[in-house]
């Protein structure tokens, strides 16, 4: 499998997850979107040393994983992109910030170490939140929600169309890549002599494809307006759900649950 085929598989997996049914799946997509954004904002707002405050935020994604019937492990694969990046930045912290903030027994814990851990946890939590959003919401529902949230029509339509053709184009490039490597054994990538033509050929074909696609739209009555089939009306219940979610985050943000719990065991 080459990289493009892997990408297609990954895309297909997300679609499959989103097509399942669970209490979380059946929530209004706008609710899930707003809740995810609120969760990420609250998570990011913790101070860089506030590990104790941050840790309880894990409860939210963990609960969602349970209610949506999705295995936590499915998202770990995605961490491979986020973690190295976050770590690359975070790893410097212990070396620059050597202020000892607290001691665990004899072990001094430096600010840099704490901020590195906080940073990594933030990375993982935020990823979980976005992952849960997409794993429980099909793209067309999300786009409908974006429209309800007044994201410009052109952008949403473009997103929808592009999403559709990402699969098609990736598939085509995957085949081309295989065809290339079958005739160029031992080459790791595209040789410089084909740098332009490899993508260029497909690009030219794509322009014809776009033309045909536009014809297909025209022939089915397209006139500047895209209609979305799957728009769920936004009800009072949904507003309440959003309020509840945000309430939960604010509680997690303001009540220092970790410390409260900690005081029970540590005097």
């Amino acid at each position, binding site marked *: 499998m080459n990289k*493009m085929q892997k990408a297609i598989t990954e895309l297909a997996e997300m679609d499959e997850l989103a097509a399942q049914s669970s209490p979380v799946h059946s929530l209004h997509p706008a609710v899930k979107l707003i809740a995810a954004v609120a969760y990420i904002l609250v998570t990011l707002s913790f101070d860089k040393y506030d590990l104790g405050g941050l840790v309880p935020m894990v409860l939210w994604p963990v609960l969602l994983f349970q209610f949506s019937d999705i295995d936590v492990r499915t998202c770990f694969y995605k961490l491979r992109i986020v973690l190295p990046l976050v770590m690359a930045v975070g790893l410097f912290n212990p*070396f620059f910030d050597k202020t000892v903030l607290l001691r665990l027994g004899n072990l001094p814990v430096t600010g840099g170490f704490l901020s590195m851990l906080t940073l990594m946890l933030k990375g993982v939590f935020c990823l979980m939140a976005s992952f849960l959003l997409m794993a429980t919401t099909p793209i067309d529902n999300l786009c409908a929600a974006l429209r309800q949230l007044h994201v410009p029509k052109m952008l949403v339509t473009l997103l929808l169309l592009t999403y559709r053709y990402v699969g098609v184009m990736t598939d085509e490039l995957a085949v081309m890549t295989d065809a290339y490597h079958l005739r160029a054994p031992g080459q790791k990538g595209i040789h410089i002599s084909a740098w*332009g033509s490899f993508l260029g050929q497909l690009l030219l074909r794509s322009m014809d494809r776009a033309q045909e696609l536009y014809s297909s739209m025209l022939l089915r009555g397209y006139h500047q307006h895209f209609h979305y089939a799957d728009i769920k009306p936004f009800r009072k219940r949904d507003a309440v759900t959003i309020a509840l979610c945000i309430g939960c985050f604010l509680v997690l943000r303001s009540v220092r649950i970790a410390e409260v719990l900690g005081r029970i065991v540590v005097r």
Partner: protein
Amino acid sequence: MHMADALLSPAVAATMYAASGVAAGISIHKLQKDDEPQKLPVMAVTAALVFAGQMINYTIPGTGSSGHMCGGMLLSALLGPQAGFLSMIVILTIQCLFFADGGLMALGANIWNMAFYGCFVGYYLIWRPIMQSRWFGDGKSAQRARIAAASIIGCVVSLQLGAFSVVLETSLSGITELPFGAFVALMQPIHLAIGLVEGLITAAVLLFVYESRPELLQCLDHTEGEGGRRSLRAVVAILAVVALVVGGGLSLLASSNPDGLEWALFGNAEQGYAENMGLDEENFGLSGKAADTAAAIQEKTAFLPDYAFADSDTPAGTTVSGIAGSAIVAGVALLICFAGGFFRKKKKT
């Protein structure tokens, strides 16, 4: 160069969202005014193509490593800046939503860093002036040279600006303890290399398009007579941008933190950084394993004793009881996981 959510503070993330949002709004307005309905499918298919195209490995001759393409410059040369910008937004959104490449809150920043510069700066300050100029004279081969030059300069400049923005955003967010100057010194040279390679790839693709379907490229027909003046303007514009990037970056670096410069000069951590940050999780040929890097960093930090950058008046917010409590929370979380898994299995059997 995709930033993760964790690297941004809410304020910076929101600011970048606002900035990208305004740029997107203006672009949409412009496109709606132009009223070219057939442009939408073209944008969608081209965006999908660039999305897939980013995964192609291009062998860099003589190095055994491979380069990649990001696409902002390519899209704006094919579709124009506004349509290119929107296409890039959509690509970045799909990467963020489905591949966890970048984050939901970092999307605004990512759009700014990777799409805005490539599309708007790349187009208005580099592509258009160069294409309308008389650089390299008249005729087809001059046109080819102009396309190549515009692609390469455009990619280099937009990546430099993008990399600088990453540093700025991360530093303003107070995420990293890495001194600003050192961070800049780390990022800019790596992205110079990336930009050059991306520029070459973009040039190759655009030249191919030029040979087969020149009408697909923006700004190819330059008006007669205005050449001289435009040419001068082009040179001035480009020089200004380059000066801004290089001068701005260097002076900030030198003035704000001489130690940082020193650190960067001594420090060889760029390699590891390149591997991790960069280069979009694909090694960019700057070899070195993570382990070596960690060791290298430790070695270097030994040169710099007692660096205390942390502002000591930041409330620690963490106590021993906090940590103990965190452990309890983690335990509870794990418990929920296991309990859930347990029940799920039971339901199925």
